[in-house]
């Protein structure tokens, strides 16, 4: 190697070394730190992640946001709030993510939200249903996408109030979600129909329902109608025992989340007919936004979307829309942009309310039926979340953070 070769080689090397950092400075990807209970809640979160990755792919195929690619770092909290806080710290300090998202369990969501407040970092909560996330413990840095426990209860109460039933029984998993669902349902139904009474309530431990005994206890109270909040395996066990023991015969059941494919599909031919539920009739929604989403999802994964897919897809798109509107990833400006942000979800146009940072994403309310040995939703309608949220003035009282 002579001297000239050496010099040119060195120069090339210098350029090669310098280029990536130049590139990074101009078009460094926007990083999102996404924390979720992937291993402990796979039934919901596998479709969630697929929906998210579909949206991510579409955003990046369209040139990214602000001319930058978007990158997601997925982290598993294994269902423990204390782990989610550690992961949030790791994502912010080590990976230098621009914002946080995710959360399935309410307590995980609340832990990240509090961390976000403490560290002045944006957190877009996708899934946790707890009302506290946007109201009692709401803060400037936290936004939430999914319709909350309160909203779902309000949607169901609207239907329940039309029923002739006077005596109600409730069954709900014994944790915050179940307890507040029952609390809101009772409160709102009594307001709508003062003559109802609640004759029995059951709170089986989450994932460990003693279904036979629970069904018997409800039966013994002889209610006219039942409000159910159990889901997943608890729901399947409850339904099977209830079917065999005739608990649902001659009674109307109003049931939260049961129309979601995640919980309806395992029931198969056993699906009880005529329950009034919130959920997601994926095969029958023919709005253009949804058809586009469903076709893309089917093409990519060769599977139909679950509700988790919609939530993942929408969360990713909402974040992209927010950054585009803000024109920056500076968190304070991004938060101002997210307040009142309008974006298009798979269910149609949605807005993050400025007053409480809750999205107006709705849910589908309908009745369960069996078709070809599978559970489906019929007679459904889209309940727009905006209609089931308290007014801005009422929210002021519910949300100390303002």
């Amino acid at each position: 190697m002579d001297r000239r070769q050496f010099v040119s080689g060195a120069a090339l090397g210098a350029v090669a070394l310098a280029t990536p950092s130049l590139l990074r400075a101009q078009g460094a990807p926007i990083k999102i730190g996404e924390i979720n209970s992937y291993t402990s809640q796979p039934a919901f979160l596998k479709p969630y992640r697929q929906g998210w990755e579909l949206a991510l792919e579409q955003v990046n195929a369209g040139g990214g946001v602000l001319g930058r690619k978007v990158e997601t770092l997925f982290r598993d909290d294994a269902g423990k709030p204390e782990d989610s806080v550690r992961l949030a710290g790791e994502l912010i300090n080590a990976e230098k993510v621009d914002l946080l998202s995710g959360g399935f369990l309410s307590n995980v969501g609340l832990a990240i939200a509090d961390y976000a407040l403490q560290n002045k970092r944006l957190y877009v909560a996708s899934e946790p249903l707890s009302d506290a996330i946007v109201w009692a413990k709401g803060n400037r840095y936290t936004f939430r996408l999914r319709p909350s426990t309160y909203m779902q209860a309000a949607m169901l109460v609207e239907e329940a109030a039309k029923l002739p039933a006077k005596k109600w029984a409730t069954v709900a998993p014994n944790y915050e979600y179940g307890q507040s669902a029952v609390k809101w349902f009772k409160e709102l139904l009594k307001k709508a129909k003062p003559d109802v009474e609640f004759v029995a309530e059951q709170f089986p431990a989450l994932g460990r329902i003693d279904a036979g005994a629970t069904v018997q206890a409800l039966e013994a109270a002889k209610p006219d109608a039942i409000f159910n909040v159990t889901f997943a395996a608890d729901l399947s066990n409850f339904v099977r025992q209830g079917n065999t023991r005739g608990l649902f015969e001659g009674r109307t059941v109003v049931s939260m989340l049961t129309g979601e494919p995640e919980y309806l599909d395992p029931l198969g031919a056993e699906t009880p007919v005529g329950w009034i539920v919130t959920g997601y009739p994926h095969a029958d929604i023919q709005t253009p936004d949804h058809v586009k989403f469903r076709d893309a999802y089917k093409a990519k994964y060769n599977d139909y979307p679950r509700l988790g897919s919609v939530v993942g897809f929408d969360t990713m798109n909402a974040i992209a829309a927010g950054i585009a509107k803000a024109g920056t990833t500076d968190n304070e400006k991004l938060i101002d942009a997210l307040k009142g942000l309008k974006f298009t979800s798979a269910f149609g146009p949605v807005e993050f309310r400025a007053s409480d940072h809750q999205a107006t994403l709705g849910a589908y309310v309908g009745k369960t039926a069996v078709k070809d040995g599978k559970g489906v939703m019929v007679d459904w309608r889209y309940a727009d979340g905006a209609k089931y949220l308290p007014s801005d003035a009422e929210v002021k009282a519910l949300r100390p953070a303002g």
Partner: protein
Amino acid sequence: MIDLIFAQTLNGLASASSLFLVACGLSIIFGVTRIVNFAHGSFYMLGAYLAFTLVSRFGPADALGFWGGVLLAAVIVAALGALVEIVILRRIYQAPELFQLLATFGLVLMVQDIALGIWGPEDKLGPRAPGFKSFVVLMGSRFPSYELFLIVVGPIMLGLLWFLFQKTRWGTLVRAATQDREMVGALGVNQRLLFTSVFAFGAGLAALGGALQLPREAVNLHMDLSMISEAFVVVVVGGLGSVTGAYLAAVLIGIIHAFGILIFPKITLVLVFLVMAVVLVIKPYGLMGKRPVGSAHAHGPVEPLLLPASHNVKLIGLAALAVLLLAPFVVADHWLLTLTELSIFALFAASLHFMMGPGGMASFGHAAYFGLGAYGAALAVKWLGMPMVPALAFAPFLAGIAGVIFGWFCVRLSGVYLAMLTLAFAQIAWATAFQWVDVTGGDNGILGVWPAAWAAPKLVYYYLALAVCVVAILALRIIVFAPFGYALRAGRDSPLRSEAIGLPVMRIQWIAFIIAAVAAGIAGALFAFFKGSVFPTYMAIPRSVDGLLMVLLGGVQTVSGPIVGAFAFMGLQEQLMKATMYWRFVMGASIVLLVILFPRGLVGTALAFAERRREAEPAAPVTATPEPAR
């Protein structure tokens, strides 16, 4: 009213049957091999999943297809159990007490990911059993005929097992081995074959229990852990190694469940643990259990004598401390978070080790004191408006008070019974935090427990946590080598002789229990301010298990083991969770591998190695190696 009582009794009996099958397998395995088999719930889950697949394949409508599938599932899992015993457990029977628990926990993690991989995330609602699809009308209410079938299965299985254990040679050997394993070995019985067959048989029973749930419950990925704690309760309430006791206990638990939800619908979370606590306080060896014959330490190597650290070990310790002190100047900023967490867990593990090692009291519920420390800090901040430092000082008292009360009951027992009573108390503490929403915020926890402004920077909080943990760990160490520590170890090794020379063994153990609780409380309080929030998960079973794993991985009979174990276990888990979504499988496999490679724990094996080398040196100075105490 009478008809409701009747129906709930039947419901209780029906759910008792599967519980009985699982628990009785667990009980037999423990009785003979002394293995606390955490993977028993996994066998139960595998049985259910396999039955689902096989029954669907053979045709669920056909009686032969259904029952054939159920039985075949049990047989396959039994073979799997034999494989596990031969490949893994057989290698570690000589390890210290409870060490095998580590390996079985590794299996639990692996099976969780394997089941997810094979059967996918969705719950599987199995077919109804042919011939038992409908219901019968009993006293005016409809009762599923399959539940009646299950009610009958329980006593039939009990009868078969009774016959097996009383009337066959294999059964006689199993009973003999349950009573005195060494004697059975001395009489020339092929122990290897006996252990393998017992383990396979127990696994098969668990799988049968799972398969029989098919028409009753949706098969899902959480079945393993929800069954295992309940099965432990049944085994202990019934009395270890007693099949009849297991049946009685299963019926008791089933019936209490069925009536409990009528009277206190919200208390189902803890009901079984309350029952267990009451039974153990009244009958320390369970309903049908007998006081174990022979020495409690009749198996495994005798605990080596703990010696104060040699010069070299002290140097290593100082060097490690120096590394931790200097680390912030070398490593990237975010590593401080990991190091802070690891320091806190090291104290937690050291506090548990103080009970388990020198105290000889294994605890399955040590997270209670960790959690109570955390709640103490959070409640002090939230309700008393305390600043950080007073709250940190106040918190351990809550843990200590719990230690005083719970410990008083626990030290009256020993071995696995003691461990299970600690678990019961931990679950009661957990349920209180979970259920008392007005004070503790329920499962949404208490938020906003952040450190004072001066301690908020990561670096400052790291040094604060490190300082507190090092001081607390050193204090524990000093106590171990103080006269109190010697008295404690004497009580562990020979309660009779200790009593004879005038040591109040029970009171000494009680004080050790309280010290361990306070130390765990300190760790919990630091953890609360570190995370900024407190949740019931801090004192849930998985946290207790983590503590146990850290101590066992490090080595029970070494003083520095728990610290090494904490860093190894939590560090490994953190890195794996980041690296792969299948971290549970990799973690489980790593644990199993570590267990086989280091059968006395990481530090324990290192020490044993050093010991051998010293003995090999011919001119080794005759140190006074006291005769190992038994």
